[in-house]
C-alpha cells in the first residue's frame, strides 16, 4: 500500500485501492475526505483559510489553500476520476481553536462556518465529523475500504 501525503493547502485524489491519503497536523485547518464507493475514487483536501477573496492570485495558484476554491477543486478532480456527487461520502475533521472565547483567534471556527455554508448551498451532506476543540488531528482515508481514521494529539484514535 502506498501512502500519499497531503500537505497544507494541498489536495490529492486517487482511484487506486492500494493507496491511502493522509494529512498530518490539522490545527485550525480543515481536512475534507470524500469517497465514492462505486467508482472507488477518494480525495483529501487540507485547506487553511475560509475565503479566497483574501488573496485571489494565491487562490488561482493554490486553490487548496481556501475553503471555497479548495472544495470546488476537490469535487471537480473527483468527478474527473469518475466519481459522482450523489454517491460521495463526505467526512470532515479539524477546525480546532485556541482556548478562551476571544474572537481574535477563531480561524478554526471561521473555517468550519465557511465550509458548512458551501456544503449547504450545494446540497452536500456531511456523513461524519470531528471538529473544534483544541487538539491537532491526523486524517487518513483508506481507498481499499473508504475507511476514514483520525488520530488526535490527545492520544485518541477513532473512525468517523
Amino acid at each position, binding site marked *: 500500500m502506498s501512502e500519499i501525503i497531503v500537505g497544507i493547502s494541498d489536495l490529492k485524489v486517487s482511484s487506486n485501492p492500494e493507496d491511502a491519503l493522509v494529512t*498530518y*497536523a490539522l490545527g485550525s485547518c480543515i481536512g475534507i475526505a470524500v469517497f465514492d464507493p462505486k467508482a472507488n475514487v477518494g480525495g483529501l483536501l487540507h485547506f487553511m483559510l475560509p475565503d479566497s477573496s483574501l488573496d485571489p492570485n494565491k487562490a488561482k495558484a493554490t486553490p487548496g489553500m481556501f475553503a471555497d476554491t479548495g472544495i470546488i477543486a476537490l469535487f471537480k478532480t473527483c468527478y474527473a476520476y469518475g466519481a459522482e456527487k450523489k454517491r460521495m461520502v463526505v467526512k470532515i475533521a479539524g477546525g480546532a481553536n485556541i482556548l478562551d472565547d476571544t474572537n481574535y483567534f477563531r480561524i478554526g471556527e471561521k473555517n468550519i462556518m465557511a465550509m458548512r455554508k458551501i456544503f449547504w448551498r450545494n446540497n452536500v451532506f456531511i456523513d461524519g465529523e470531528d471538529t473544534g476543540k483544541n487538539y*491537532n488531528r491526523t486524517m487518513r482515508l483508506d481507498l481499499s475500504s473508504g475507511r476514514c481514521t483520525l488520530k488526535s494529539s490527545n492520544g485518541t484514535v477513532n473512525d468517523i
Partner: protein
Amino acid sequence: MIINCILKSVEMVPAFPAAIQKVAELLSDEDYAVTNVTNVINRDQAIAANILKISNSAYFGSRRQIKTVHEAVVYLGRQHLIRAVQAAGISKIYRKGSKGYVLQAKDLWEHAVAVALMSQILCRKIQGREDQTLYTAALLHDVGKVIMGEYVQEYFQKIICRIDEIKCSFLDAEEEFIGINHANLGGRIAEHWNFPIELRDAIAYHHRPDLLNEEGNTLASLVYLSDQACLMMGLTGGIDALAYKGLEDVMRYFDLRIVDLEKSFIELMDELEKAKDLMLIG
C-alpha cells in the same frame, strides 16, 4: 520533588555555543573583518559544517557552490550570516532534546524555524522592519521543552484529563503536575546561558506576555503571536496543540485584525517553502 530534578537538569545544559555569541558580537560592528568571523566559525566544527550546508541551500539562494567557510562568510553577508550561525547551533540543541511533546526531536526544531520566520513577517507588518533579537527569541522560545519533554510524557494522561475537565491551558496543567511550565523552564535555561533579561523574559513568558509589565512585553508578545499563529496552522505542533490562552489584548495592542493573521499565514507558507533546507540541517 520533580522540580528539583528539573532545575538540576538546567545546570547540566551545555553552554550556549560560544561561536554564536562571538559571531553576533563581531557582526555588531558593521566594519567587521571577514577573517575574524571565519576563524570563530572554524573553531566549532559542527557549526562550520552546517554553515556550508546552509549557504548552499535554496533558502539563501546561492547560485554557485560554496566550498569554504570563508566563502560562506563573504557570500552570506551580515544579516544572513548571523541567522545561519544561529540556525546551525540552535538546531543541535533541539535535536538533542527529549521527544515527549513531539514524535521526533526534529519537530521541535521545525516548529522553532516556523515561529522565527513568522516573527519577522509580523514584525515587518507591525514595525516596518525585521528584528534580530526577536528572531533569536523566536528560535529559542521552546527550549524548555528540550528538558520538559521527558516529564510531560510521564504525566501526559493526567495533563490531558485536566485540560478536558477544567478547560485550563497546557501551561497551567504543566505547572500543576510538574511544578513548572515549559516557558518558565526555558527562561531558566536562558538565565543559565547568561542571556540578557529581555531575551530571557521573551522565552519565559511566550505564552503569557500579559504577565509582564508593558515596557517589557513587546518582544514576548510578538513571540507569543508568532507561536499561536504557527500552532493554529498545525505547524509541527505537539501533544499540547492549541491548548493555550488566546490573549485578545495582545492583538489589540498591535492593532492586528484576524485578517492580518490570515494574511500572515499565506506569507509564511511561501517562506516555509524557501526554508525547507533550513529545517533539514542539524
